[in-house]
C-alpha cells in the first residue's frame, strides 16, 4: 500500500521563491552598486583591526616589552612569518568575514582574493546591466577595474609578483596559474587603474546617480583615486627593489626604472593639475595652529581645515578623519572603536595615566631625527644650526605637532596631587617616563595620530570626547611626495611631468610651505642622488607613522642597510629644574649629554625584502612557489 505512494522528487527541491537569483544582482544600478559595495566593507582598517594593532614595521617605531608578540617586534627579530594568522596586524587574521561590521574581521590576504573574484564576477556580468544609463554603467565598471587592480597592488607590495586574476574560476576548475613577475603584474594593474581613471568621475556628487547620495560619496572610488594608484603602482614598479631584485649592500638604491617612473609622474601630474586647477574636492589640509602642542587651529576665516583632522577628529560628532586631503580611505564603521584601544596605545602607562592595554607605540630616536630644522636643512647638515644642547629648538614645525618630547605638558586637566609629577613628561635619561615596561624607552612619544589628551585626566578617549581615528591609505601630501620621487628618479630636482607645471623640487616645497618650513636647500638640488635623499627624508617626516615606511625601505633596497637597520633611543640629561617646564616652552630647555643609543639591530638578508607566503598555499602545486629564502 505505502509503496504505491509515489515519492514526489520535488519534495526535496529548494523552493524557487526562497532563492535569490544572481540575475537580480546585476540588473540595474541600485542592485549592481550593492553588489560592488561589499568590496568597500572589506578594506582593512590598518589602525583599529585589533585591540592593539601594529602597522609600522620599518625603522620608525618600537613597542614596549609587553608588545613583544606584535608584528613590530617580530619584524625586528626577522620573523616575517608573524604576518600570518596573527592578531594585531591588518595583513591577515585567523577569522575574517567580508560582511562583518566588526573591524577585527577584515584583513588583506583573504579579502584581497575575495574582492578580486567579486570584481571579476562583476566585470563578467556587465552585460546584464541593462536597465542603466551609460554614466551608471561607467561608474560600475570603473569601480570594478579599480578594485581588481587595487587589491592586487596591495598584495604585491608585500609579496611581489603573483598571478594576476582576471576571471572567475568555476567550482571544479583546476587552478595551476604560475606567479608572474612584479613588472607583469604591475602592467596589468596599471591597465586596470587606467581604465578606471577613464571611466570614473572626479566627484560622484556631480553625477546624476551620485546625486542620490550627495555629500556621502567621499569614500566611493573616483578618478582621483584611480590616478593616484595608477601613479603609485608605476612608481613601485620602477623602484630599485622591483627593478634590480632583492640584494644587500645598498648600491642600487638610486637605480630606478625610468620608463615606469615617467609613467608614474604622468599619472601624478594629471592628478595634481586637476587639484591645483581647483577641479577637485581635494586640497592640502591647512597647517595653521595657534597651539601646536594641543593641535588647536589658528583663528580666522581663512583657516578652514586642520592637518590633525587627517588622522583623528574630536568633538566633531565622530566625523571620520581625513579632512579635505584624504584620497583613499576604507570605511570606519565602528566610530567609537578607536577608543578600544587604539587611542590608548600611544601615551605613557605610568600609574595608569593612559589606561588599558600596556602597549605603547614609541617613535625611535633615529626616526625622530629625520625631522630637520625649521630652515629646511637636515640635522646633520653643518649649516643646519642644530644645537645638541638645545635639540628641540627650531625644528621642523611638524616635530612639535607629531612628537612628544622631554618636558612636554602631557596632562592639561586637574589630577590628584600624587599624580602631578607626571604632568610634564620626564623623557630624559632616567626620567619619570622612561620605564621600559610602561613608558618610553626611546625618549619620545607620538601624538600625530592620537592627541596627548587621550589620557585618563583629559579624557579625550571617553565617550564625551568623541575621538575618532583613522589612517588614510592615500592622501594628497603623499601624491606630491610620490610625484617628486618619480620625477627625481628620472631627472633630479628640476624634472617634471609633461602635464603638470611643478618640478620635483616645487612639489617638495609645496609641502614645506604648508607647514611653514624652509624649502629644500640648493645644495641638495644639484645632485640627483642628494635630492632623492632629501625627497626620502621629506617622505619620512610627512608620512611618519602612517604605515608607509616599511614598504619604502623595501623598495629602496635600504631595509637591510645601516643606519636603516637600527633603532635607537635618545639619551640626555636635564639641565633645567622641574619648575622650568611649568612656565616655559619645553622646546627652549637646555639639556646636556645628548646622545643616541642603539636598542635594536635588525639582522636582515635578501629574503626579508618579500614576506613569506603561507606554507599551505605554496604546497599545492610547484608554480605557485615561495618567495626566495623562506
Amino acid at each position, binding site marked *: 500500500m*505505502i*509503496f504505491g*505512494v509515489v*515519492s514526489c*522528487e520535488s*519534495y*526535496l527541491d*529548494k523552493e524557487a521563491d*526562497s*532563492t*535569490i537569483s*544572481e540575475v537580480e*544582482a546585476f540588473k540595474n544600478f541600485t*542592485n*549592481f552598486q*550593492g553588489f560592488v*559595495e*561589499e568590496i*568597500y*566593507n572589506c578594506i582593512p582598517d590598518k589602525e583599529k583591526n585589533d585591540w592593539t594593532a601594529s602597522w609600522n614595521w620599518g625603522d620608525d617605531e618600537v613597542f614596549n*616589552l*609587553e608588545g*613583544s*608578540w606584535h608584528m613590530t617586534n*617580530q619584524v625586528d*627579530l626577522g*620573523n616575517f612569518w608573524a604576518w600570518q594568522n596573527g592578531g594585531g596586524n591588518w595583513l591577515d587574521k585567523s577569522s575574517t568575514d567580508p560582511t562583518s561590521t566588526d573591524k577585527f574581521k577584515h584583513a588583506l590576504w583573504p579579502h584581497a*582574493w*575575495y574582492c*578580486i*573574484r*567579486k570584481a*571579476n564576477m562583476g566585470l563578467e556580468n556587465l552585460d546584464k546591466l541593462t536597465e542603466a544609463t551609460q554614466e551608471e554603467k561607467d561608474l560600475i565598471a570603473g569601480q570594478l577595474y579599480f578594485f581588481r587592480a587595487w587589491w592586487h597592488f596591495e598584495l604585491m607590495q608585500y609579496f611581489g609578483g603573483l*598571478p594576476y586574476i582576471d576571471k572567475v574560476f568555476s*567550482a*571544479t576548475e583546476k*587552478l*595551476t596559474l604560475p606567479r608572474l613577475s612584479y613588472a607583469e603584474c604591475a602592467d596589468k594593474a596599471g591597465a586596470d587603474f587606467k581604465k578606471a581613471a577613464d571611466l570614473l568621475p572626479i566627484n560622484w556628487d556631480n553625477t546624476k546617480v551620485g546625486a542620490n*547620495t550627495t555629500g*556621502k560619496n*567621499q*569614500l566611493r572610488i573616483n578618478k582621483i583615486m584611480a590616478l593616484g594608484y595608477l601613479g603609485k603602482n608605476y612608481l613601485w614598479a620602477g623602484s630599485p627593489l622591483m627593478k634590480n631584485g632583492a640584494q644587500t649592500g645598498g648600491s642600487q638604491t638610486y637605480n630606478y626604472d625610468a620608463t615606469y617612473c615617467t609613467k608614474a609622474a604622468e599619472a601624478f601630474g594629471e592628478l595634481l593639475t586637476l587639484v591645483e586647477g581647483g577641479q577637485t574636492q581635494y586640497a592640502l589640509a591647512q597647517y595653521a595652529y595657534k597651539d601646536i602642542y594641543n593641535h588647536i587651529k589658528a583663528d580666522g576665516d581663512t583657516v578652514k581645515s586642520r592637518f590633525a583632522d587627517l588622522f583623528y577628529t574630536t568633538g566633531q*560628532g565622530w*566625523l*571620520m578623519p581625513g579632512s579635505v586631503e584624504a584620497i583613499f580611505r576604507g*570605511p570606519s564603521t565602528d*566610530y567609537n572603536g578607536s577608543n578600544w584601544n587604539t587611542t590608548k596605545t600611544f601615551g605613557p602607562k605610568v600609574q*595608569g595615566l593612559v589606561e*588599558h*592595554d600596556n602597549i605603547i607605540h614609541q617613535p625611535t630616536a633615529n626616526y625622530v631625527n629625520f625631522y630637520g630644522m625649521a630652515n629646511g636643512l637636515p640635522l646633520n647638515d653643518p649649516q643646519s644650526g642644530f644645537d645638541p644642547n638645545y635639540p628641540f629648538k627650531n625644528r621642523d614645525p611638524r616635530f612639535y605637532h607629531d612628537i612628544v618630547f622631554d618636558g612636554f605638558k602631557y596632562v592639561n586637566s586637574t589630577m590628584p596631587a*600624587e599624580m602631578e609629577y607626571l604632568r610634564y613628561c620626564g623623557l630624559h635619561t632616567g626620567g619619570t617616563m622612561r620605564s621600559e615596561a*610602561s613608558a618610553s624607552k626611546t625618549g619620545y612619544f607620538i601624538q600625530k595620530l592620537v592627541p596627548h589628551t587621550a589620557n585618563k585626566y583629559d579624557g579625550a578617549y*571617553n*565617550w564625551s570626547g568623541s575621538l575618532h581615528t583613522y589612517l588614510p591609505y592615500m592622501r594628497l601630501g603623499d601624491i606630491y611626495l610620490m610625484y617628486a620621487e618619480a620625477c627625481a628618479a628620472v631627472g633630479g630636482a628640476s624634472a617634471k611631468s609633461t602635464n603638470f607645471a611643478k618640478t620635483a623640487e616645487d612639489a617638495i616645497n609645496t609641502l614645506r610651505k604648508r607647514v611653514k618650513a624652509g624649502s629644500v636647500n640648493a645644495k641638495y638640488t644639484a645632485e640627483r642622488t642628494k635630492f632623492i635623499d632629501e625627497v626620502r627624508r621629506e617622505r619620512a617626516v610627512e608620512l611618519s607613522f602612517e604605515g608607509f615606511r616599511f614598504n619604502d625601505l623595501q623598495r629602496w633596497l635600504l631595509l637591510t642597510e645601516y643606519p636603516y637597520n637600527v633603532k635607537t633611543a635618545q639619551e640626555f640629561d636635564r639641565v633645567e629644574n622641574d619648575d622650568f617646564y611649568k612656565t616655559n616652552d619645553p622646546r627652549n630647555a637646555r639639556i646636556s649629554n645628548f646622545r643616541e643609543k642603539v636598542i635594536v639591530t635588525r639582522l636582515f638578508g635578501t629574503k626579508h625584502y618579500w614576506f613569506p607566503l*603561507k606554507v*599551505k*598555499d*605554496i*604546497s*599545492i602545486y610547484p608554480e605557485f612557489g615561495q618567495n626566495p629564502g623562506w
Partner: protein
Amino acid sequence: MKNKFRKIMSNVFFSTTIKKSSLAFLFLLVSSCFTISMAQNRVFVRGTVVSEQQEPIIGAAIVLKSDKTVGSITDIDGKFSLSLPSANATIVVSYLGMQTQEIELKGKTNIIVTLKDSNLNLDELVVVGYGQQKKESLVGAITQTSGKVLERAGGVSNVGAALTGNLPGVVTMQSSGLPGEEDPKIIIRGSSSWNGSDPLVLVDGIERPMSGVDISSVESISVLKDASATAVFGVKGANGVILITTKRGKEGSAKIDVSANMTVKVPSKLPNKFDSYDALMARNVAIENELGITPESWSYIKPQSVIDKYRYPSNALEAERYPNVDWQDVLFKDYTTSNNVNLNVSGGTAFVKYFTSADFVHEGDILEEWDNGRNYQSGYGYNRLNIRTNLDFQISKTTQLKVNISGSNGIKKSPWNQTNSSDWAVAQQWAGAYNIAPDVFIPQYADGSWGFYPSISNVSNSAANLALAGVMTTTNTRIATDFVLQQDLKFITKGLSFRGSISWDNAFVEYNRGVNDLYNDAQLKWIDPETGLTTYKKEYENNNKFDFMQSVLWNTSGGEVQDWSTQRNLNYQLQLNWGREFGKHNVSAMGVMSRQETATGSMIPFYREDWVFRTTYGYANKYFFEYNGAYNGSERFSAENRFAFFNSGALGWLITEEEFMKPLRFIDMLKVRASYGEIGDDNIVVNNVPLRWMYMTQWAYGGNSSLDVSNGTSKYTWYREKAVGNPDVHWETVKKTNLGLDYSFLGGLFAGSVELFRDNRRDILVDGAARAVAPYYGTTPATANLGKVKTEGYELELRINKVLANKMRLWGNFSMTHAKNIILEKDDPALYAAYQKASGFSIGQNKAYVDAGFVNNYDEVYASTVHDKTDLHKLPGDYYVIDFNADGVIDSKDNVPYGYSDNPENTYNATLGFEWKGFSAFVQFYGVNNVTRVVNLTSFGNKLNTVYDLGTWWANDHSNAEITTPRWTSTPTYNDGTQYLFDGSYVRLKNAEVAYTFNGGWVKSLGLNNLRIFLNGNNLWVWSVMPDDRESNFAGAGGQGAYPTMKRFNLGLKLTL
C-alpha cells in the same frame, strides 16, 4: 488508604479517556460484552504472584494467552482469580520491571507464580530500528541497557552522562560541569568522518535531544552499531544510532513509584597554580634565565624583601597591597547540592494502558555568591521539569492507538546574556581558577571596591565579573507529541500489520528574563605594589567630573522568546510489517516511508525523505538471515544525485542449536554473526551550521557598507555570492563490516560477546575551507567528495553472574572497546611531505614540535638547529627541537604528528557488584587510553604572575628537569615542545553504590510495597596526569578552562506504592 489512592488513579485515567472519546467507550463496551459472552463452561483458577524474595506482587497482570481480553489483576496480597475457558489454557503473567512469564496450567487451578526481576534478562527483547527483535535471533551489532542501569549513576541527571561505560562501543567525553550543560560528547565506535561523529539519537522513534528525557522515564536504551542494524535509518545512521524507549503502562492496577535524590557536588580536579610568593620567586628565576638575551627584563626583578610581603604581610594594608589570592578557593564554594524527585504512575486496563511521570531536577551552582550591594544574586543553576504521559489504547481487537505527550521545561540560570559557555567572555566567570595571577589584585577590597588591573584590559576579575553580571534565565520548553496507529491486517493476509505515526515536536526558548545590569560600572581599584598608590577605574564621573558613585541602576526584564530558536519538527511514517512462521521457517518483511520536516527560527525547513525495508529469515531458530535497504533522498544534492540506494545484509548461526553441540553442556549458548552493508551520509556542518543545497551556488542579499564619513550607511544593499555550489556533490558512503560472537557458559556464569568491526568510508565531503585550492580562487571553494577514512576496532564484553549457596548474587561486567581510524585521503596539498598530510593519520591527530631533551649549555645552543623565527632567543634549558625533515632549519615543517587524537582509542569499563537479601552494592571503574588532550597552561602569559605547577624547571644544576624554564620577555619559538600535549588517559571510579531494599513488615505498615535507600556517587576519583578533570575541550579550550566538572555524592530513596 493506599488502595483508595490507586483506585482514584485508575478511575481518573479511565474516566478521562472515556470522556475523551465516546468511540473508545463503545469499543470498550463491545470488548467487555465479548468477555462476558465467553464466560461459559469455565474453569476457575486462583493464584498468587510473588517476587523472588517471596514478596507478594500487587497489581500484576494475568491474561489468557489466546485471548488477551480475558484477564485479572493481583490484589494487595498478590492474589488473583480468573475464570478460563479451559483447564489447559496458557496464562501470561506480567508486571512492570519483572520478567513476563507464560504458564501452561495443565489442569492446575491453584498456582503460585514467582516472577523474576527483569533487569537480569531485560535483553530478551531488543529494540531495533522500527521494531523489536528477540535477542537470540539478532544478527546485527546491538547492545542494550535499561533505565535501571542508568539510575545507578549517582546523582547524575543527564541521560548522556549516565551512559558512560554501560554500553560497549559507546565513548562519552565530558568537558564541563555547567549546570544544565553536562551533556557529554558521544561517539560510537570511533569517528570515521571529520564531518561530525555524533550518533543519531531517537526518542520513541523520532529524532530528539537526549537531554529532553529524564532517566526515570527510560525503559531501555539500545545502541545500533553495524550496517544491518543502522541501515534502516539510512542517512544519519552512519555514526551509529541510539534508540531511547520510554516506559509504557502494563495492564494492572496503578503502580506508583516515587524516588528522590539528594546530591552533594564538589569540583573535581583543577590546575595547580603557585601562590604569589612562589610565583614571584619563579618569575625572578625566569628573568634571570633570559637576561643574556633580553637584559631589559632586569627591570622586572622583584627584591626578596618585596616578595616576602606577599606571604607575610605585616598588616591588613599590606595584605591588600601585596595580594595573595587563592582564586580557586575564592571562586568556589566548598560544595553545592543538586536534587531530583520523580513520581510516576503506571497501569492500565485491557482498553487503555498508561504511564505518566513527573520529574524535577535541580542542579546547584558551585560558584561562590558575592554581596554586590545591588540586591540581586548572580550565578548559574538549572531546574528542569519533565512531564510525560504515554497512553496505549486498544481501540479494537486489531487496532491500537498510542499517544505520547511529553514536555520538558528547563530553566537555566546564568549571568545576563552569557549563555554560551565556550565564549571567552563567559569563561571569565571561572577564569580565576585557570589563569588569573594570585598577586594581580584582591577580588573585592575591604572598602567594597573590586580589583582590576589597569595595564591589560583582558585580565578579568572573575569575582566581579560574576557578582555584577546581572542574572537571567533561559527557559527551554519542549513539547513532543506522537500519535501512532497500529492496525493488524490479518484480514488481508495473516501476519500483516500496518503502523502509521505522526509526530510534532515544538521547542521554544525564552531568555533575558531577570536583571539586566549591563554598563553599570562599579568602583574598581588597583593598588600598585611598587608605589602603594591606588588607581581607581572611576576616579570621577566622566561627563560631569564629580566623584564616582556606584549606583544601583539595573532594570528588570520580563523575558522574550528567541524567535530564531523556535523549533518545529514534523515527522510522519507509514510502515507495513509482515511476519509468518511456516514450520521451521520464520519470515518477516517490513517497509517504511518517512518524511521529516524540521526548522529552527526563520530558516527554510529542512526536508528529508527515506524509504527503507527489512526482511528477515530464520530457519529452525538456528540460521538467521537479514537484508535491509534504504532509499534516501537529500535536499543537499542535485536532482541527479539526490536519491541513492544503500543496502546491507547479515547472517547469524546459533551454533548451540546444532545437535553436535548438545553434548557440550557447559556451553549454554554460542552464536556467530556477520554483517556487511553500505550507509549514506550527507551531513556536513561548518561552524555549527549544516551546509545545505551544496549543489547550488547561493546568493545572498542584505547588509550595507558604511560609506558615509558622518557614520551613516550606504543606501545600496549588498548582493553577494554566499556559497559556491558543486553540481557533482553526492553521497558520502560508509561500508560497514561486523563480525560478532555471543557466548554464554556454565549456566550463565560467564556470558558476553566479542565484536570485530571495520568501517570504510569514502566520498567523504571535504568542506571548501579545508581543501587544497590555490588562495586566488577567491572564495571558499565548493564542498567536494574527496575523503576516505578507515576505522577498525573490536569490542569485548564479559558478564559474570554467580548466585552463591546463601543466595548472594555476585556479578560483574567487563568491557573494552578499541576503535582506531586512519585517514586514507583528504584533499591534502600535493607538495606536503607524508607526515604533513592529514592522510595516514587519525582524524584530529595532534601535532607538535618534538624535542630530544634539553639543550644543556651554550655549546649545544650554538650547535642546535637554527630556528626560522627568533633564533636569537634560544637559551640553554630550551628543548632541543628535532629537525624532523632534516632541512637544517626548524620551521613549521617540523611540526609533526605526536601522540593521539582528542578521542580515546580505547575505553575500558569494569563494574562489580553483589546482592544479598535486601543489600546491594557495586563499583564501576571507567578508563580510557591512547588519547591526547591539549591544555595550554602557559606560565607568565601577558606578563602576569600566573605559574602552573607542571613540573620542575630546567636549571644549570638541574638538567633532568621536567619542563623548560618559562620566559618572561623573550619570545623563543617552538619551545613549548610537547609539554602542553597531555596524555589524556585516565581511570576513574565512575560510580559506586550501596543500597538496601526494604520490603518487610514495617514498610508494608507504612502502606508501601517496597522502599529502597541508596548511597551512591559519581566521578568519585580520577587517576590521570592531566592538570584538570576534563575529558575533552569542546566546552572551552584547554587553557581557557571550563566550569569545573563535578564529583557527586548522592543519597536517594525510591519507593513503590
